[in-house]
């Protein structure tokens, strides 16, 4: 009935290192337009370049602690491109890739990781929820968003991202159960990168996969290769169609790997052998898709050069906007606590401004 951790580990490793989809190039997918295949590749590069630059910024002390996503681009790109603008992205701290693709400006992400309240702004009309820092707590939110859509008869689906570690939290369980009972138009998308900080997946659970947990909620569970954006896209696309047509929730597990540390404060050499990381990097999902595109005749060196330049430029511009943002306004901390600030808060704000030698201060909305 149950597998030992060692067995589970072997199975995961196996799936990881020799996934058939990566072993050979198949035919060009008939179900996906060339423009979309190219877009996947481009967006993956966008995220990777963004991510690398962000890590450099952190190393240079120009932003704060930052959780790199490198390695997980195929997951975030495949999943997010399968959504429609009206659908909701409900992210964790590592899903700023999905946030960017769904409409959040890059500079907001950088401002956020630079400890700036301005980075929390999600433009009106962009259906992205704030980053959830406490693990798994966003999953009931995604259920609630989807439930509201259902009650309001909106053609809208919510996609909640989570990690392998999050599957251990009670909130994962409660959210999945609500989704199953109320047949909500929600998709739970797990990026199983096989570690929760230092804790390997086989210490997180005694099951071999996350996907099989879906059955405990009467929910469909799907496992895909998170190294393959096309496979991820197809699974999420199908789940969106199902949810939007009243078919209920889906749990999708994408097996993936993070190349870098958990965050810039983390040292992965303490818990992961270098060979393991190298083996994953050796079959990089972006490089692989690039080779496929070339094999299918829709990509070439010139396009590649243009892409790299365009994306570097885009990221540089965003960094420029982040760095040229006006200095933080200290009284911002008193904003948005309540619709109307309480007299007590107003008094504290006055005292605060006085202590800064700045009486008055801008209008409180």
């Amino acid at each position, binding site marked *: 009935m149950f597998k030992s951790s060692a067995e589970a580990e072997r199975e995961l490793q196996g799936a990881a290192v020799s996934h058939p989809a990566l072993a050979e190039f198949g035919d060009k997918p008939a179900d996906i337009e060339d423009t979309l295949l190219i877009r996947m590749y481009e967006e993956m590069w966008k995220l990777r370049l963004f991510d690398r630059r962000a890590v450099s910024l952190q190393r240079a002390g120009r932003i704060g602690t930052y959780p790199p996503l490198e390695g997980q681009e195929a997951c975030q790109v495949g999943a997010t491109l399968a959504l429609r603008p009206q659908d*909701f992205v*409900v992210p964790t701290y590592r899903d700023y890739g999905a946030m960017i693709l769904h409409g959040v400006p890059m500079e907001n992400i950088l401002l956020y990781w630079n400890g700036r*309240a*301005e980075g*929390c*702004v*999600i433009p*009106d009309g962009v259906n992205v*929820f*704030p980053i*959830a*820092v*406490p693990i798994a*707590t966003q*999953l*009931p*939110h*995604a*259920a*609630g*968003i*989807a*439930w*509201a*859509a259902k*009650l*309001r008869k909106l053609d809208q689906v*919510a996609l909640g991202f989570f990690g392998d570690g999050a599957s251990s939290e*009670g*909130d994962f369980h*409660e*959210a999945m*159960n*609500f989704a199953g*009972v109320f047949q909500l138009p929600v998709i739970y998308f797990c990026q199983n990168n096989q570690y929760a900080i230092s804790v390997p997946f086989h210490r997180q659970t005694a099951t071999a996969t996350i996907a099989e947990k879906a059955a405990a909620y009467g929910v469909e569970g799907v496992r895909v290769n998170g190294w393959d954006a096309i496979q991820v896209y197809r699974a999420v696309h199908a789940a969106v169609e199902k949810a939007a047509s009243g078919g209920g929730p889906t749990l999708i597990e994408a097996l993936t790997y993070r190349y870098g540390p958990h965050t810039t404060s983390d040292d992965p050499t303490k818990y992961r052998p270098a060979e393991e990381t190298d083996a994953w990097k050796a079959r990089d999902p972006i490089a692989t898709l690039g080779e496929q595109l070339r094999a299918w005749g829709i990509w070439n060196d010139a396009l590649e050069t243009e892409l790299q330049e365009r994306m570097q430029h885009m990221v540089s511009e965003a960094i420029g906007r982040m760095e040229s943002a006006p200095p933080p306004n200290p009284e911002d901390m008193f*904003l*948005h*606590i*309540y*619709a109307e600030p*309480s*007299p*007590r*808060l107003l008094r504290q704000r006055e005292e605060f401004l006085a202590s800064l030698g700045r009486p008055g201060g801008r209008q409180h*909305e």
Partner: protein
Amino acid sequence: MSSKTLVQAINDGLRCAMARDPRVILLGEDVGVNGGVFRVTEGLLEQFGEERVIDTPLAESGILGTSVGLAANGMRPIPEIQFMGFIYPGFEQLVSHVARLRMRSRGRFTLPMVVRVPFGGRIRAPEIHSDSTETYFAHTPGLTVVVPSNPYDAKGLLLASVESEDPVIFLEPMRIYRAFREEVPDEYYTVPLRKATVVKEGTDVTVISWGTMVRETWTVIQRLEQERGVSVELIDLRTLSPWDEDTVMTSVNKTGRAVVVHEAVAHLGLGAEISARIHEECILQLEAPVARVASFDVPPPLFQLEDLHAPTPQRISAGIEKVFAF
């Protein structure tokens, strides 16, 4: 107008809110078919249907967490937590999300949700059914904490809470759910949040209380006024956070004495904050240090001793006498 208990007034308030705004929905354990374990939601499933009065699985974090998503995406959910002692499994959602979502999204996502929670002791309930832990919520910036002490206020405060764009923890004192009736208008009305009310004017001492304790304190006061010839001003705080400092300070500046009475334990009960604030603002007007009458600093005992854990008439009376004897 009709004569209603607190339960009936809240039920009526829920009905008014739902009739007025289709975005208002109820969810929680046993709120539907059963009409709530205290019958607060009775008849609402029949009137508004299964999509708006929803029996959920037994999961407080799920109830509060999905309410966050519901509220952020256009609904106005009123989740019920069956007893205050069972809100703790959902505490994370309240503290990290409900209280902070407005701030965390810089105003993009707001949470017009009212978390209804029966609370307090002295109804001979089983263990862990008698907590008065409003401090946990009042200490959490971003939450509004409301407690009615009578049927009229209950309906009006509830409707004001439902109108609020901020999340409200609406605490319902179980002990007075059916303890007395009062005339309650049948139509829609609100009682403002963040406003205390002077239940009874007086000149010699200000007594501040809320919920169940208001009426019990009032009884003690009546006797004291007769027996001792003192004049007591009684304030019902109604909103515990952010609370109405103005009304309290104005009264204490007038009377020169203050006593806080509450059912929460003394240590870091809201009385501590009120006492600290009064001393900060009014010390020169005070004839005596502010007195606190509260439950002892132990968890609520099983019910045979619970009446002695909470402030008794005798202890309330002693607390008031103390500020005269100083």
